[in-house]
């Protein structure tokens, strides 16, 4: 690598060389060869060579200069008896020249390294300024170009993961370049997956391909972030051939960190924007739901009040009329529950709902459930709650609703008139509720499916009514409490739906 020589040094060299040469040729005795002057000149020249061409060149020059001096002195003295002194002098010269050459060469190397570092720092600083969220979209490609120039690479590219988690070159010409260099793509893929797997020491450091094994794949470093690699930074092999030095690979690693930080920031910004959009969509859904709720409930309330008003009034005197009005009242109650189910499902499946946790007596669930069950079915239900159930934090309104759905389900599927038991007891880490019937039970393959929306089960075709949403609502409510729900078999026949609630509900 060339290095600019200090103009002062150049001037010094030229003037000394001129003086020495002039003094030799125009001296009183041109035959006298003042070797000392040439020794000093030789050392200066070795220095200059070391500065321009490095230590190796300087050493070669020193040896050549020594040989030249030996030749000239020998010729001058015709290899006389003083040649022993001559050899010592030349030997001393050679040593001094070599020392001077090596020292100057090292200095030069350090200066070169410092300059190189300066260029790299300057590039990193420019990258940091350019790779900001408000920066131009071409920021990354410009940065890659500059990096390529600095490292003298054949090509610099960015690879980002596709849907399958494999790094893919960005840009049509990058894709073409990589398609002709399978080794490069293989290297990029390797470093990406190794970083993703996090095994081994420092899995996300730069790696260089070995050109001795055929065509070189260049060097690549994964763009690492807290959540794994975001992509790969790849540089083709050096323009002059060969390999990158360790310092260059380290620099590549540092550059990758800057780019990774930029990509991560971009990702975060995108996530924030998406969350804001979801939030506003949820708010819209909420306000739609609440206005829908009002629209549906108002006519329902009016009709319920009117029909039940007729019953109170004495339209009840005619037994048939009374019968029909009572039947209409039951239908209205059913309608109320169905509308309630639809609204519950929308509310629970959106992300805005959270249980209203408060200290409550689990045994209150019994009367809550019974209040919602039609009067004609209440005699079938038995509450079996342990007397010493602990006061716990849960949403009484909604948990009662969940158990109401389990009871409604049991009432529908168990043969008419058969008992349904609603129970509660302490468990190791909380409370257990269950609803048991002596109906047909639930087949093993349906035990998970029944909780899905609109699933009606095998027996469903024979059982009228029902939205197929009740069990979904129940399981959602239980999930929001951090609990779980399962179905057990009852001997000789029937099903027991069991809810386990932890003492510390997850809603908090």
């Amino acid at each position, binding site marked *: 690598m060339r290095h600019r020589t200090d103009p002062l040094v150049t001037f010094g060299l030229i003037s000394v060389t001129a003086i020495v040469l002039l003094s030799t040729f125009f001296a009183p005795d041109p035959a006298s060869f003042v070797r000392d002057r040439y020794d000093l000149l030789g050392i200066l020249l070795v220095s200059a060579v070391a500065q321009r061409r490095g230590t190796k060149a300087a050493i070669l020059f020193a040896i050549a200069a020594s040989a030249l001096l030996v030749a000239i002195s020998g010729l001058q003295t015709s290899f006389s008896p003083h040649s022993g002194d001559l050899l010592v002098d030349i030997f001393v010269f050679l040593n001094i020249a070599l020392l001077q050459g090596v020292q100057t060469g090292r200095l030069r190397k350090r200066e070169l390294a410092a300059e190189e570092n300066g260029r790299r720092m300057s590039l990193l600083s420019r990258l940091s300024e350019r790779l900001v969220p408000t920066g131009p979209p071409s920021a990354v490609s410009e940065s890659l170009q500059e990096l390529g120039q600095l490292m003298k690479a054949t090509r610099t590219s960015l690879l980002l993961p596709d849907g399958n988690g494999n790094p893919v070159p960005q840009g049509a010409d990058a894709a073409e370049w990589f398609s002709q260099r399978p080794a490069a793509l293989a290297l990029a893929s390797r470093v990406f997956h190794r970083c993703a797997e996090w095994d081994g020491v420092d899995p996300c450091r730069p790696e260089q391909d070995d050109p001795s094994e055929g065509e070189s794949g260049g060097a690549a470093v994964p763009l690492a972030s807290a959540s794994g690699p975001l992509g790969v930074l790849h540089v083709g092999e050096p323009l002059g051939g060969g390999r990158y030095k360790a310092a260059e690979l380290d620099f590549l690693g540092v550059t990758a960190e800057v780019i990774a930080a930029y990509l991560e920031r971009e990702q975060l910004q995108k996530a924030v924007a998406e969350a804001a959009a979801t939030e506003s969509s949820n708010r819209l859904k909420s306000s739609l739901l609440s206005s829908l709720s009002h629209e549906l*409930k108002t*006519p*329902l*309330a*009016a009709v319920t*009040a009117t029909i039940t008003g007729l019953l109170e*009034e004495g339209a009840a005197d005619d037994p048939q009329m009374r019968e029909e009005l009572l039947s209409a009242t039951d239908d209205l109650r059913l309608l109320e529950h169905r509308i309630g189910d639809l609204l519950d499902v929308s509310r629970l499946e959106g992300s805005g709902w959270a249980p209203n946790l408060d200290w409550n*007596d689990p045994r209150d669930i019994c009367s809550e459930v*019974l209040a919602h069950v039609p009067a004609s079915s209440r005699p079938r239900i038995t509450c079996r709650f342990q007397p010493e159930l602990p006061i716990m934090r849960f949403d*009484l309104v909604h948990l009662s609703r969940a158990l109401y759905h389990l009871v409604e389900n049991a009432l529908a599927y168990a043969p008419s008139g058969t008992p349904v038991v609603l129970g509660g007891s302490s468990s190791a880490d909380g409370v257990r509720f269950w609803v048991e019937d002596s109906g047909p039970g639930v087949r093993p393959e349906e035990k998970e499916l029944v909780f899905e929306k609109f699933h009606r089960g095998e027996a469903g075709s024979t059982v009228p009514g029902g939205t197929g949403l009740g069990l979904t609502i129940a399981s959602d409510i239980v999930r929001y409490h951090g609990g779980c729900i399962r179905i057990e078999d009852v001997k000789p026949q029937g099903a027991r739906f069991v809810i386990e609630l932890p003492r510390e509900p997850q809603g908090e």
Partner: protein
Amino acid sequence: MSDAQRAGNAKTRVLVIDDEPQILRALRSILSRSYSVELAASGEEGLQFAAENPPDLVILDLTLPGVTGMEVCRSLREWLKAPILILSVRDNEADKISALDLGADDYLTKPFSAGELLAHVRALLRRAGNVSDKPGSVRSGDLVVDLAQRKVFRDTETVKLTRIEYTILATLAVNADRVVTSGMLIKSVWGSASAEDSRTLRVHISNLRGKTEADSSVPRHVVTEAGVGYRFVTESV
């Protein structure tokens, strides 16, 4: 109210404030047999009618547009002593509690039956009629709360209650058939609504039920109003 009573007194005046014409129609139809009913279609109208012609009972929908139900409740309570029954919707416990704290006396969740409405209205008017003295004793089925003697009987047996249990029961009994929020109960026992948390209250209520109910899982006297508070029930709806 018996026919004789109805004939004897000037009809009790009920003011209904609701923005939905169907609801107003239905309520008038149910109430006009026993009471003189005035209808207001908005909060502003309701406040105006109440000021011109003070009613004996107000039925107020919480979901009013414009001047909200909550604001009407607060304004009325500044000068009106008559009971206020609020109409609310399902899953709106927070609003119900706020309205009760602002001075409403009870609530009904839509849709409600005519029977429920009339029972609530009767209970509120009964209480309003006895505004000067507390009832001497209150009965719920086989349970009698003698407020004068501070004693509680089940059939004829005296029930031994702790001071706190008695205070809770007495507060509920004085407000028989009307909801008392958990906050109000805590205040009546411990002096301020934030003095104790609801956990302590639930424990005492559980103990109280153990002593006064035949089956604690299905209480008949001290009934839970989920998410809101409790009610001492003297008549079946």
